[in-house]
């Protein structure tokens, strides 16, 4: 297409040059001659006018073809540009790839360098480890020797420790024993005192104060005012005053005795009646009058006697403390 238009253009240029030359040689007024010739050509085609019309037509065609070829050339240039851009792009990509590869290689190189260094180091180490091992072996040898020595000394110090422990134990045992001795002594004293008091109680000696004695006196005084009553000088009171006061105290004491001491008669027969006993327990029955050596014992029951069946005293948690059987009282 290009060649064809180029040839057509060449031919047209030659025609144009030739036409130009012909027009300039024949001194033809182009425009008037064109209109004249066109008219003439239409009316009668002949000679120069015919050429002139051909020339103008060719000129028109030439102008057209120049326009067409110019357009084609412009189009070709832009196509080339795109192709070039593409090529540039490819090249850029290639360059990038190369760059990447370069970095890779560089790292590889670095790695290799490192490895090399490592290898150097391990080589050095190996050499020194060998040396060290030898030294250590020697050290171990001497250490085990030391250990044997140490074990020996440990044994000795252990023995010392054990001995001192034993000494300590013995010492503490000694203190314990002394303490125990002390305690036992105390207990002994206590029991001696108790025994003494029990003995005294048993016999009713003058120093006998069993805790229960305090307790019973305390209750008799608290509930029935017995101590107060017996200690009061009643000689100035008339019988009515005495009777009224005693009635109340009698009532209270009776209540206490009934509550705390369960009593029953030794003999259940009526007092004043005649009783006959085959044998007599002197602790329970007292006989008087004309007493035969052997039973049966027959006589009048004077007193039925009392037997303490049960004693319901409150339990003293810590024994009796002190010697107070009636507290002093203060009202605030």
């Amino acid at each position, binding site marked *: 297409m290009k060649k064809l238009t180029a040839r057509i253009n060449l031919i047209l240029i030659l025609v144009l040059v030739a036409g130009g030359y012909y027009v300039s040689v024949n001194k033809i007024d182009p425009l008037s001659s064109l209109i004249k010739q066109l008219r003439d050509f239409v009316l009668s085609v002949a000679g120069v006018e015919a050429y002139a019309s051909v020339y103008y037509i060719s000129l028109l065609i030439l102008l057209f073809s120049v326009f067409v070829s110019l357009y084609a050339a412009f189009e070709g240039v832009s196509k080339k540009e795109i192709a070039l851009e593409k090529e540039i792009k490819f090249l850029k990509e290639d360059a990038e790839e190369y760059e990447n590869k370069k970095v890779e290689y560089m790292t590889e190189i670095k790695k290799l360098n490192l490895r090399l260094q490592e290898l150097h180091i391990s080589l050095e180490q190996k050499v020194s480890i060998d040396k060290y091992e030898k030294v250590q072996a020697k050290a171990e040898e001497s250490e085990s020797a030391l250990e044997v020595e140490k074990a020996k000394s440990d044994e000795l110090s252990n023995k010392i420790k054990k001995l001192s422990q034993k000494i300590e134990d013995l010492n503490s045992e000694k203190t314990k024993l002394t303490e125990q001795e002390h305690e036992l002594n105390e207990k002994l004293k206590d029991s001696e005192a108790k025994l003494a008091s029990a003995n005294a109680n048993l016999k009713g000696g003058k120093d006998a104060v069993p805790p229960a004695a305090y307790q019973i006196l305390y209750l008799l005084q608290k509930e029935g005012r017995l101590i107060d009553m017996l200690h009061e000088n009643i000689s100035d009171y008339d019988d009515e005053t005495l009777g009224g006061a005693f009635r109340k105290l009698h009532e209270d004491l009776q209540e206490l005795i009934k509550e705390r001491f369960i009593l029953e008669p030794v003999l259940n027969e009526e007092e004043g009646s005649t009783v006959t006993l085959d044998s007599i327990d002197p602790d329970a029955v007292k006989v008087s009058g004309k007493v035969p050596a052997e039973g049966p014992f027959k006589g009048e029951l004077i007193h039925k006697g009392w037997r303490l069946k049960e004693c319901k005293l409150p339990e003293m*948690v810590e024994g009796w403390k002190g010697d107070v059987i009636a507290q002093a009282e203060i009202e605030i």
Partner: protein
Amino acid sequence: MAAAKYIVGIDLGTTNMVLSYSRITSGSDDEADDGQSIEFLPIVQEQPKNAVDTAEVLPSFIFERLKEKPVLPWESDNEFIIGEFARERGAEVPDRVISSAKSWLCNTRVDRTKAILPFNGEESTKKISPLQAMSMFISHLKNAWLQEFPKDKLENQKVIVTIPASFDAAARDLVIEAAKMAGLPSVSLIEEPQSAFYSWISQKENPWRQQVKKGDVVLVVDVGGGTTDFSLIEITESDGDLNLDRVAVGNHILLGGDNMDLTLAYIAAKRLEDSGKKITRWQTVQLSHQCRKAKEILLSDSEKDSVPVTVSGRGSSVIGGTIKTQITREDIENSIVEGFFPHCSIDDEPAEDTTSGVRELNLMYAADAAVSKHLAKFLKRQMNDAHKEYGYPNAILFNGGVFKAKIFRDRLVAIIDSWLTESGKEQIKILEGIELSKAVSRGAVYFGQAVSGKGIRIRGGVSQSYYLGIETPMPAVPGFKPPLKALCVAKQGTEEGTVLKIENRSFGLIIGKTAEFRFFKSNCRREDEFGQMIPDMDETFEETSLMMAEMPAYDGLKAGDLVDVELEISVTEIGTLEVYCISKDNEHRWKLEFNVREAA
């Protein structure tokens, strides 16, 4: 928990406590034990002079120690003495003693969990709450039990605690709480008059089935040391066998035998003062003891016309310091019989406390000593509703030491007969065979057996009807509170183990706030049905402790949100009343707790 070996009845009396027990037998007798095998625990108690002793009764007194060293095996640093010695020291140092703790438990005008006892005690005195006091008694009994039965701890036994029938739901809760604090997590409650009735059933000399018949209404009159309690028990029949229904209980009346002794002591003191002698407070206490003895002698021996009462001199001059006067038969008849059991009409009401102005906050002692008038009021109230026959009992069962005296029984019977004949009814029948002083704790053990299926059981249920106060919606009027309506949440007689829901009524409660309901009771509105709304509240309603529930935020609901709830009521097996609010989606429930802290 080991299987219970014993049934234990604890009588938490106002002035004396008793613990009775019976071994659980494996026999499958239809009848429970006849009471022969019931024993009383010897209760270890502190005595003066570092001694301990046992007694069958534990006097209900707590004394804050001065210098006395604790001696009981289970206490090394207890600041309080409990029992006999506490009573003795309390007479000498009255500011440090706590008495009648039980009656404080049902005093709605004080915070029963706050340390207020001894009431009006000095600033320096250590105070404890009525709840704590109760728990200390139970704890003492528990320890005393352990001394006797080291292998069978009390918490592993079946324990029944007796309470006055007049105790309201809040006071019942407090007794349970006190038992829990003392380490008894599961005790059951029984009303004292019911317990006395059980004791009567358990005796064999006068078989109860021969003494009552179907349709009889039995009036139980229980006058103890400090309280008077009335109950009505109806004899019904089903399947040919007799049943017992407790149909009414009276109000809490702080009036009893102690008041009689005190009355006589005042008479004696006045007589002594008239003769120019000065009586100290200590002597009044002694006089009161003497007067009790004199009263007992005069009541049991109709030959005697007077008994001397004597107080010995306090100093060592015991005879010279003695003061003496006497109590006569006339005193008993004029002051005690006429004072406590005066003839009266059924329409008579006990005098209200008319002292105007501010009344000292204390126990609500009965203002009128006339037991007969309190009884008239109780019976009259029964005639107000559908079951008028409950106002005209056919039989009477006496309980309490006071009724050992025939003169009181006869007088009360004469009064009731006058009421009955007036309305054309037959005279009342006296039920025989009850042992008057230990019947309550004995009966508690029988009840324990009855619960386990041996012997007959009284159907009691809720002792009175209970109501929530609901405000009537109305336009706001300044200075005028919207009137209250009463929603019946528990009908008198609702049986143990019942769970009921008020279906068609819901309440909007606000999350994050405390839901509060005023709570009322009534012992003479038998016809009100569960869930019924009573528009006008008259004097038959009595306000009791507030009920309230904290309403914390929960899943998704935050403070300020309104949640719709319905009410569910549960009468527990142990004899308490529980009220729950249940959200409508049924996913959340709040228990309404009695507010025993603030005065109602």
